């Protein structure tokens, strides 16, 4: 029994069909708990007032925006090295979700920034790198859409994803060098004792779990759709031949 068995589309379909409802429901439940708890049962911050509550959307989406790209990088590598079609399709399925997450992070950030920093947008390193990440996503999706042959498209986008990752990291540090930051430090990191105060922290964890599960559910759903679309086109092709 190894992970690679699920590279077989039939096995993948069977497994993902069983997991999908669970992840979808769990994601819904934890999002409801996290958001309701966060929005209605936590106190206002003494400096930021109630605007602090946008953290429950902003932090998880920003977290996912980066991790979706990481997931695409891994699945692209799997495609290049072992040529499993499910992997390439999963990368294709994840990209639009990544765009959505990046947009949510940018928009919620702007909504929070207007009352707090007095501006919708500032050329701060973090904001700028997110905007660049957004452009990378757009290019990736556009390349998928532009190429007709599926395998060629998978090859080209995988290599673009690899090269793009290197350049995204380069841009991140270049942008840091270019301008000083307005954005506060990381809200959550594993290596520090104290992150956000506990009242805000616990619902935030629920929201993050909800976003992760939501992403898993959406990727599974979209990958299943892609696989089915492939099957239909194969069936049509066979019909035309016969």
């Amino acid at each position, binding site marked *: 029994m190894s992970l690679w068995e699920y590279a077989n589309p039939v096995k993948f379909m069977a497994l993902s069909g069983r997991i999908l409802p669970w992840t979808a429901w769990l994601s819904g439940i934890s999002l409801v708990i996290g958001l309701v708890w966060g929005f209605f049962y936590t106190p206002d911050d003494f400096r930021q007032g109630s605007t602090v509550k946008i953290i429950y959307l902003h932090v998880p989406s920003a977290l996912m925006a980066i991790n979706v790209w990481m997931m695409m990088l891994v699945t692209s590598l799997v495609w290049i090295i072992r040529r499993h079609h499910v992997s390439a399709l999963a990368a294709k399925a994840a990209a639009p979700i990544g765009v959505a997450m990046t947009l949510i992070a940018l928009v919620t950030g702007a909504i929070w920034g207007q009352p707090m920093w007095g501006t919708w947008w500032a050329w701060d390193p973090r904001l700028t790198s997110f905007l660049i990440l957004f452009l*990378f996503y757009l*290019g990736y999706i556009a*390349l998928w859409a532009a190429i007709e042959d599926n395998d*060629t498209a998978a090859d*080209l986008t995988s290599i673009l994803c690899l*090269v*793009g990752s290197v*350049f995204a990291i380069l841009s991140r540090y270049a*942008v840091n060098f270019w301008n000083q930051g307005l954005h506060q430090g990381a809200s959550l990191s594993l290596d520090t004792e104290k992150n956000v105060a506990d009242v805000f922290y616990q619902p935030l964890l629920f929201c993050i779990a909800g976003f992760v599960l939501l992403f898993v559910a959406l990727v599974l759903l979209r990958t299943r759709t892609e696989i089915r679309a492939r099957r239909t086109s194969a069936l049509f092709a066979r019909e035309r031949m016969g």
Partner: protein
Amino acid sequence: MKALLIRDLRLAIRAGGGFGLGLAFFLIVTVLVPFGVGPQSALLSEIAPGILWLGALLACLLSLDRILALDWEDGTLDLLACAPLPMEAAVSIKALAHWLTTGLPLVIAAPLFALLLNLPSAGYVPLVLSLLLGTPALSVIGTFGAALTVGIKRGGLLLSLLVLPLYVPTLIYGAEAARRGAQGVEASTPLFMLAGITFGVIALLPFASAAVLRVNIR
């Protein structure tokens, strides 16, 4: 390799509309900027390094699809794929030819255009140095983009969308070096970073470009 380089250079110079067009575009951008922002020389001299870098970048971008598209159409690329020359070398030569016909003229002409934008006299050496170090990276990255989109009909816009985000680090360090030079501040740090990017890209990216081109030819 030498034959390929000479062939590409000759084609670029003799076939109409390629060579010098980038330069003319660069000139037009430089001329249009004062119309856009107003003729105050203090403002112009402040934004001159950034404008010159952006102009050079756009001029490079415009000529990218010429690197491979014609060779793709007439089958030269298929012949190159069968030739004993490794694909990596062929792409590197293509990038070099592109730099010699687009990047180098831009570097040489930049001081003249800087004059139009009233660049402070301290800024000339850093500007030329940064362009000299940075434009090869633009050519090599652009060749990767051209290889990605070579099989796509009317891929010009897509090419820009793919290549421009990849240009971000080069532009940041290059323009920063030119800006620091114009303000009379020490500019060596961004210049070193720029050189790092350029040499790293020259060393590694041809492998990606060649891989992409092989997929497209398959």
